[in-house]
């Protein structure tokens, strides 16, 4: 069973529907009691950093997510759910979960359209198991105005949009992606399948 954190952000249904399409059962995590039923936790999200974080704080989901990760359980953060792992964001000048070192800042190149919206390539820097059968420089779908600045050691894949920014990070049981695998067609579904199968955890 895959748990998807339900909070005040857009388009959680797409993540649910993608996971179900892959033949897995999904449970929405709105409160803390169901966490013992699941094997994998996903923090999805498109939306505003500060308001998303505020919601996690008020509902105490913040501490539960932290505990889950500290226990070494598999975790995937998508887009905003990925950005929330870090220490701070410029979007609403707000502290994040602080599980990983780094900050979230806005694309500032005046010659670029912001949001960074559409299909862009992910250059694979480290061939982790979750990239199985996925070619280097494959296209994934992005929709964001802010990007993560973090230690090189965490970065598994990067994407070019004026600058190179981290589009995939991983540390032990944590994977974070800036793109939307649930909206990245066949490749995105394959990426999710690889993650849920869990070879990368061994």
């Amino acid at each position, binding site marked *: 069973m895959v748990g998807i954190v339900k909070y005040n952000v857009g388009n959680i249904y797409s993540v649910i529907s993608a996971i179900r399409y892959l033949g897995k059962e999904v449970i929405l995590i709105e409160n803390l009691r169901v966490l013992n039923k699941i094997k994998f936790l996903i923090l999805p999200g498109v939306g505003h950093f500060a308001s998303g974080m505020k919601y996690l704080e008020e509902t105490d989901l913040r501490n539960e997510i932290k505990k889950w990760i500290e226990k070494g359980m598999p975790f995937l953060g998508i887009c905003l759910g990925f950005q929330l792992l870090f220490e701070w964001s410029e979007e609403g000048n707000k502290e994040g979960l602080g599980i990983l070192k780094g900050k979230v800042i806005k694309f500032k190149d005046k010659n670029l359209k912001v*949001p960074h919206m559409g299909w862009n390539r992910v250059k694979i820097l480290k061939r982790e198991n979750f990239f199985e059968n996925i070619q280097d420089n494959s296209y994934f779908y992005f929709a964001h105005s802010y990007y993560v600045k973090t230690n090189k050691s965490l970065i598994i894949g990067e994407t070019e949009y004026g600058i190179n920014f981290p589009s995939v990070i991983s540390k032990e049981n944590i994977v974070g992606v800036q793109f939307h695998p649930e909206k990245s067609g*066949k490749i995105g579904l394959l990426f999710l399948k690889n993650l849920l199968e869990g070879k990368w955890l061994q």
Partner: protein
Amino acid sequence: MVAVRIIPCLDVKNGKVVKGVQFENLRIAGDPVENASYYCKEGADEIVFLDISATIEGRKTMVEVVKKVADVVFIPFTVGGGISTIKDIEDLLSNGADKVSINTSAVRNPKIIEEGAKRFGSQCIVVAIDGKKIDKDKWEVYIESGKTPTGLDVIEWAKKVEDLGAGEILLTSIDRDGTQEGYDIELTKKVSESVNIPVIASGGAGKLEHLYEAIVEGKASAILLASLLHFRILTIQEIKNYLKSKGIEVRKSE
């Protein structure tokens, strides 16, 4: 760099895909879910559903269709037509739509852009602007499926919706829509250069060269297509092969 997006637009009325010439003279062309799956397989980068009758008839948008689409289509899709409240936006997004496209209501109540962007993020608020040329370098915003003039200048309105938090502009030339004579390049270029958010060009494509012009001269980030695709005059594969041969970055079809 981010690839130029090719976006089929499915105009929907009473659950069926239709396409009108200059917003009139509707023709039936199939089921929305089947159409969406087809285009997804063919290599569409996104899909737009526009409920073209919604605003006029006060009909509410098609949440059930959205849900069915989201169950089988794993590329982004936008829903527009008749969206007038934050609740309308929430209903569509929570049932699987990635973005909403707001047109008439954005003009009548610009606050919906601001509130929508604050609540759900700019990336899911598309403002659709239907422009009609009224003078040299001057276009007027029309609402209610292109029927009602507003007195608003398209360029000024585009800047304003960006300030209010829109994440994208879906720009349609009323003069060109359905004519297959090519996009209004001047209009596309003016809007695209006036804002920092992506502009989707729509209305008037008739051949491959038109798409190239909209991207290179019009500086559009994406291309919206309807009848050209629906009636198989061109396929997405042909379009992408052509653009690629011209040095434009496109996503390979799966």
